[in-house]
């Protein structure tokens, strides 16, 4: 209580048009403290981050750093001296080199000119601290998502600020990456740096943080030491419901009938440079997991199954009929539904309504003769909104006005709209809050229970837990297969290629 808080925000109000994103919230992070900020999608966490880093000016309220009032809104240098941040949105410039992205606008200058040689060597050293082996001369657009995320993290941490904000930094990282990040964070914490850490993975909160603040519906709910708060109480605080007994979702024990007929089958399917020939069978009532870290080829496998990419070899059949390779419409017609990895890139048409986005795959079923009847569209969307609990002002709201988790639900609604025989979902719960995650995984399970099938490609254990069977993918090869009841360690080890198990696949 003696040293002034690293950051103290009081009575912050922020409105976007009619939406109140923050409603008089407060937050205090003490020096050297690692403070978690949690809440459901759209609770206002990212908005607070923008306010704390000077990107948005609050409509009301004050922010102080170490007891001093926050810098003037335009004075970015002063803000950067106070606080560094990894934003939820990608803040790399795709056409600049990695080195330049790391030192954007704070170049190593001798006189007026930028000294590129020194900049590169500094960049190389900085990246090496995180074990990221990237040529600093490469353009950022050529990096993988994970590498890009590390570039942003390295940049934020290199400012030497005493306060660092990380808004969902782990959403794009695999387990190894997360461990490397955490080690670095702990090191910094020992040096007295304070953190504000935002994540939907409560496990990470318990692992890293000492204090937690919960926001709900733009309001502050509670702040407490992490140690004093059981996980189910934390979830209850986030969702505003009485504590339930389950904290991480487990598939119900309804076993799929073993003799269920094959819904989706891939034979000797291969894509050069991504994954080697593999076989894969999903039966009626079954959820198949494909576990794989960032570069394992899992995403490519998912995209190949749904026709976004053409395989270099092999065959895909749905219910015995061969699907034309590399064609989304045919895959869709054959009964494959798709939840893409990146909803902003492949999932949503931002300015169009929730109804339109949700019915994008079934536009041919909404009226006779190629027409799309507004009444049917709305009815369709209303059903989806109700059954998936999408928080929206109505089917006509533009989908860009929804929070991340709700946007994700719209994407899932879109995939389910066509009533697919087999749902293929790539990291379906990325950036989605706990409650929504349960709901979404529940939906996947329901699909299976209704006698259909699903494939989940993910590296999140929570996602994989709902699966009946999990294939572990490493560097494009199936290295292991697990049945229900696997141990976390074993699966993680397999994903990281630590065990070369008895040649996977069937």
């Amino acid at each position, binding site marked *: 209580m003696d040293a002034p808080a690293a950051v103290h925000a009081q009575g912050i109000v922020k409105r976007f048009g*009619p939406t109140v994103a923050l409603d008089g919230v407060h937050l205090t992070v003490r020096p050297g403290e690692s403070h978690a900020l949690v809440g459901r999608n759209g609770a206002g966490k990212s908005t607070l981050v923008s306010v704390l880093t000077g990107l948005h000016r609050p409509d009301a309220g004050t922010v102080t750093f170490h007891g001093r009032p926050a810098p003037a809104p335009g004075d970015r240098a002063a803000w950067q001296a106070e606080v560094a941040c990894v934003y939820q949105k990608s803040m790399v410039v795709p056409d600049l080199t990695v080195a330049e992205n790391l030192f954007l606008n704070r170049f190593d200058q001798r006189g007026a000119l930028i000294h590129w040689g020194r900049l590169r060597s500094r960049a190389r050293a900085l990246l090496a601290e995180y074990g990221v082996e990237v040529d600093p001369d490469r353009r950022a657009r050529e990096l993988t998502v994970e590498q890009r995320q590390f570039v942003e993290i390295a940049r934020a941490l290199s400012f030497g600020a005493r306060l660092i904000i990380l808004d969902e930094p782990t959403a794009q990282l695999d387990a190894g990456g997360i461990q490397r990040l955490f080690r670095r964070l702990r090191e910094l914490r020992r040096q007295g740096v304070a953190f504000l850490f935002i994540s939907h993975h409560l496990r990470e909160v318990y692992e890293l943080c000492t204090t937690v603040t919960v926001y709900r519906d733009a309001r502050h709910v509670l702040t407490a030491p992490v140690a004093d708060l059981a996980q189910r109480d934390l979830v209850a605080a986030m969702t505003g419901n009485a504590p339930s007994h389950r904290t991480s979702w487990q598939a119900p024990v309804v076993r799929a009938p073993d003799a269920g007929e094959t819904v989706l089958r891939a034979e000797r399917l291969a894509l050069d440079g991504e994954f080697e020939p593999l076989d894969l069978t999903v039966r009626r009532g079954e959820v198949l997991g494909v576990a794989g870290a960032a570069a394992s080829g899992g995403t490519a496998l998912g995209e190949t199954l749904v026709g976004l990419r053409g395989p270099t070899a092999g065959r895909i059949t749905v219910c015995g009929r061969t699907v034309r390779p590399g064609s*989304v419409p045919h895959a869709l017609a054959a009964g494959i539904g798709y939840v893409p990895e990146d909803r902003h890139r492949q999932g949503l048409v931002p300015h169009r309504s929730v109804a339109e986005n949700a019915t*994008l795959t079934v*536009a041919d079923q909404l009226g006779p003769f190629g027409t799309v009847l507004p009444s049917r569209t709305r009815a369709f969307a209303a059903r989806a909104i109700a059954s998936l609990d999408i928080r929206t002002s109505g089917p006509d709201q533009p989908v860009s006005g929804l929070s991340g988790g709700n946007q994700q639900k719209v994407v899932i609604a879109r995939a389910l709209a066509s009533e697919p025989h087999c749902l293929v979902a790539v990291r379906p719960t990325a950036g989605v809050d706990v409650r929504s995650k349960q709901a979404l995984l529940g939906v996947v399970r329901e699909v299976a229970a209704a006698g259909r099938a699903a494939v989940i490609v993910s590296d999140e254990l929570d996602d994989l837990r709902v699966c009946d069977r999990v294939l572990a993918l490493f560097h494009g090869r199936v290295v292991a297969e697990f049945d229900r009841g696997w141990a976390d360690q074993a699966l993680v080890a397999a994903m990281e290629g630590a065990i070369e198990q008895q040649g996977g696949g069937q």
Partner: protein
Amino acid sequence: MTDTTRQLTADAPPGRLINRRSRPGPARLRNLALLPVILVLCVIGFIVSPAFLTTDNLVGVVQQSTELSLLVLAEALILISGRMDLSLESTIGVAPVIAMWLVLPAHGGRFNGLGLLPGWTSVPLCLLVGLVIGAVNGFLILKLRVNGFIATLGMLTMLRGLQVGISQGQSIVTVPGSFSYLGATAWLGVPAAVWICLALYALGGCALAWLRHGRALYALGGNPEAARAAGIRVDRVTCVVLCLGSLLAAFAGVLYTGHYGSVSATQGNGWIFQVFAAAVIGGISLSGGRGTLFGALTGVLTLQLVVNVMTLGGVPPLWNQFLGGAIIIVALVISRFASGERQD
């Protein structure tokens, strides 16, 4: 599961919902953004000259808008699907010329064609030429993946050159009967071109609102990757839109030729800027996925009314162009503030 869902929905703070329902929504406002501008222009026109509000004058304004408005319709469809086509302004001239070249007799006239085909084929031929041009644009943009703006700019120059080459730079004044009929007849006292144009706009508007493929355009323009992942055949739809756009431009050429009784080598020269201006002040986004045909139509009318009011008002010829430019900017600013959306 479903129980929880119900519960949650009931939980949502009720204030928010009501709030959103009551306001008309930016999308709709955007379409009406130009109506105040048109109203003001009408008032000014009425003050400036009593002739403004006569049927003759207003029908005249509308008729003069027909060809431009068809190009705007074409460009609007293309813009909504996230592309651009500059070559429309040449298509309006080259398509009729090629059609006539194939149809007109090889001897005797001022302009000697090839006389390969009978006269009644001239309109279909003209449309066919439009289709072919659209297909070439589609090939360049979708197969070769070159920049659409510059590719169609090259096409603009090339097609204009083709027209000059074929017509030997002359105006062609022997216009086939079917052209003249479409361009110059009146139905119910209003030029046929106006009816056709309105019908095409209505058709296009309905297609965008209620047809599967119409809605696909918005998805395509808003986020092509998402559209692809949702099973829309992106390249095919884009190609169809490009062809359709050129087809409409060729049809505008038919109307133009009929209306003015000749094809001049400069037909449509410099129109593309007006086309873009009309579309954008009418609320179509240059980056795709946003806007309506109704908005585009108000854009065309605004531009045409400006010319009409300036003529009636007897603006000094030397300052005509200056005023025209200034009014575009003012209309743009008004349309931006009336719709309340940033336009970038």
